[in-house]
């Protein structure tokens, strides 16, 4: 049973002992073979690692593409590609972490069984590491295939006046090998560090003994940064040079990412407290408490969207602003169109990553809490209540964060572009597309994890005795 405390490692257990030591390979196979566990526990980590690997390779390929360019606009695009990386690194790391956690949690499931079979703690650890790494490796290989399959599709994206071509984001075999090994290592390390039997919240964090606190200092520092960024942008006045404009946008972006990271968790906890006070139903109560349990984890999950929706506003306005310069020459018009494409691609990628992390994290959270869900079902809590609580604990912070950071973005570009440009049809369109697409993607991934919950309830024998 997953709630069972893992046996304390004894000095002798890690070293080899002639007796009671089962062959690792056979044990690993016994536990990993189809049917030994619910298929979800094997399939999910593989899928999660596959998606992580594929997205990582696509992003890497895209960035490398810019760095291989030698035309006059190359430096600007290289800078923008770094910006894109900065934007994508957080959601990508979150996704990788979720995948690793998902495979490592199998350790708890199998621990008791293995001990009963006479395995020592050392054996248990080894089997777990072998298993996690193997799953990650399989996933990474599948991810490479996914990446290869997606290359022609990504190749349709127009850049520099025409489609980039099916091999444009090819990273080369060395980079692929590096990514596969890296993903497998990530899995191995997380399973060694191991997740002992822990109680986790729907957001997939370990519940602490004491309720966490967030401090006002963050808010203060955040406000100061916003003020400085605002003043800087205001003093820039009317900008006619595209390069300076891009520089200003990058600066505003960097400042705001810092602010969002600082203030985000705190703002979320305030938001959850208000929600908690207002909660009337069980699902409202549970979701508010779930966010409060770890505002940082909630932030980590949806923070990528904060960056994205912030950038959507800044970039939407930016493109509208750039559009107004576009009459000068065809090469400049092309440059602007390329920037807009790049921004949109980055936004879409970021939403895809957040949606994947939510899906993976929710799958893990449901499986981690299976005992609790089964018991709540027995006590007579309707499935819809459990599902609503879970969905709310993700969608509420997401909405709050998306709207909050969009407002912050509008505040920052206001001195630069003025209200007319923020409200320009083109920028509004970009923003609207991003919001609708992003929210729909995340909601969809939550919907996709509902069958896991109903499956857990349909097979209660796999949890409680």
């Amino acid at each position, binding site marked *: 049973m997953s*709630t069972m405390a893992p046996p304390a490692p004894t000095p002798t257990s890690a070293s080899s002992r002639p007796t009671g030591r089962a062959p690792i390979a056979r044990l690993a196979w016994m536990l990993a073979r189809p049917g030994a566990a619910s298929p979800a526990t094997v399939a999910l980590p593989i899928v999660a690692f596959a998606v992580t690997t594929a997205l990582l390779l696509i992003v890497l390929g895209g960035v490398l593409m810019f760095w291989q360019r030698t035309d006059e606009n190359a430096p600007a695009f290289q800078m923008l590609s770094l910006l894109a990386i900065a934007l994508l690194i957080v959601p990508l790391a979150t996704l990788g972490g979720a995948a690793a956690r998902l495979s490592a949690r199998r350790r708890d499931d199998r621990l008791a069984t293995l001990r009963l079979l006479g395995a020592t703690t050392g054996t248990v650890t080894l089997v777990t590491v072998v298993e996690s790494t193997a799953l990650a490796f399989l996933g990474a290989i599948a991810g490479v295939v996914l990446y290869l399959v997606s290359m022609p599709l990504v190749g349709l994206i127009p850049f520099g006046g025409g489609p980039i071509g099916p091999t444009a984001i090819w990273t080369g075999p060395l980079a692929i090998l590096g990514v596969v090994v890296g993903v497998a290592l990530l899995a191995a390390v997380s399973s060694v560090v191991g997740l002992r039997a822990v*109680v986790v*919240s729907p957001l997939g964090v370990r*519940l*602490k*003994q*004491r*309720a966490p606190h967030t401090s006002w200092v963050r808010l203060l520092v955040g406000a100061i940064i916003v003020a400085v960024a605002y003043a800087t942008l205001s003093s820039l006045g009317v900008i006619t040079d595209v390069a300076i404009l891009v520089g200003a946008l990058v600066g505003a972006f960097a400042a705001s990412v810092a602010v969002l990271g600082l203030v985000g968790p705190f703002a979320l906890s305030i938001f959850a407290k208000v929600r908690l006070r207002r*909660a*009337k*139903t*069980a699902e409202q*109560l*549970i979701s508010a*408490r*779930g966010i*409060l*349990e770890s505002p940082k984890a909630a932030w980590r999950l949806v923070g990528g969207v904060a960056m994205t929706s912030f950038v959507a506003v800044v970039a939407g306005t930016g493109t509208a602003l750039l559009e107004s310069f576009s009459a000068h020459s065809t090469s400049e018009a092309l440059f602007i169109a390329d920037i807009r494409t790049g921004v949109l691609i980055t936004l879409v990628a970021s939403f895809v990553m957040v949606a994947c992390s939510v899906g993976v994290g929710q799958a893990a959270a449901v499986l981690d809490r299976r*005992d*609790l869900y089964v*018991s*709540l*079902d*027995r*006590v*007579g*809590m*309707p499935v819809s*209540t459990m599902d609503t609580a879970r969905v709310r604990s993700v969608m509420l912070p997401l909405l709050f964060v998306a709207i909050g950071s969009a407002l912050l973005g509008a505040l920052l570009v206001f001195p630069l572009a003025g209200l007319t440009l923020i409200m320009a049809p083109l920028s509004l369109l970009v923003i609207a597309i991003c919001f609708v697409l992003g929210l729909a993607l995340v909601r969809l991934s939550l919907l996709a994890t509902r069958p896991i919950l109903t499956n857990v309830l349909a097979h209660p*024998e796999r949890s*409680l*005795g």
Partner: protein
Amino acid sequence: MNTPLLHASSLVLRYGSTTALAGVDLVIQEGESVAIMGASGSGKTSLLHCLSGILRPDGGFVRFAGPTGTVDLSTLSDGERSRLRREAFGFVFQQGLLVPELTAVENAALPLLLSGYPRADAEARAAAWLAALGLRGLEARRIGELSGGQAQRVAIARAQVGGATLIFADEPTGALDSATSVDVMDALLRSTTGQGHTLVVVTHDEKVAARCSRIVRLTDGQVVSDSAGAASSRSTVPAPGAFAGPAAASTTTTAIAHVPTTDGPAFGGAGWESGR
């Protein structure tokens, strides 16, 4: 005697080729405390799950005499049985299984919230239950901040806060040390049979069983003995009404806690208040 509260007849339950219950007959009267004992794998949990409508038996029937009449559990839909469990039965599991991010009082209030009771009232009633079970002052603690015994009392409060008068407990003291076991079992007995309610408890512990009014022993899915427990004389169990808890209004709750017919909360708030 009048209609039994719970009447199980020739219960058969199979898991594939394993027969967990091989024709169990059991009649439980209101106010009894029944200990179900037996070796591991003898079918105790299976029996408890059939009696409480968690599982539908492959053969036989379970009849529950609710205040609105007798219902045959296997004729109810999943939704109706779910509702029956929520409103008429209470459950205590081996490891509390409380929602970890909620506080003690919120956990105890959960069944009331699910029945559509206003939050303030639900929490007030839950707090009264916690206080009656010796947890006064711990209402705002999160589950991780409680000891195993305290968490189990929260589970006991949750089981009964909705007015349930039939409580099912599966090894409620199984994860506790022996001193804490005694305390928790005390709390469980006082709050149930102590006020005329009915308790069905699966246990490994002879000491726990000895405090019940009746002991049913299972072997290989069959009842091999059904005897009066040491407590059948009621000498060691407080008399009905002795439990000075919020459920002193047990007459109110007994009368209203029932199955399918109404949509509202399973008890009247005013009735409960006036009953204090």
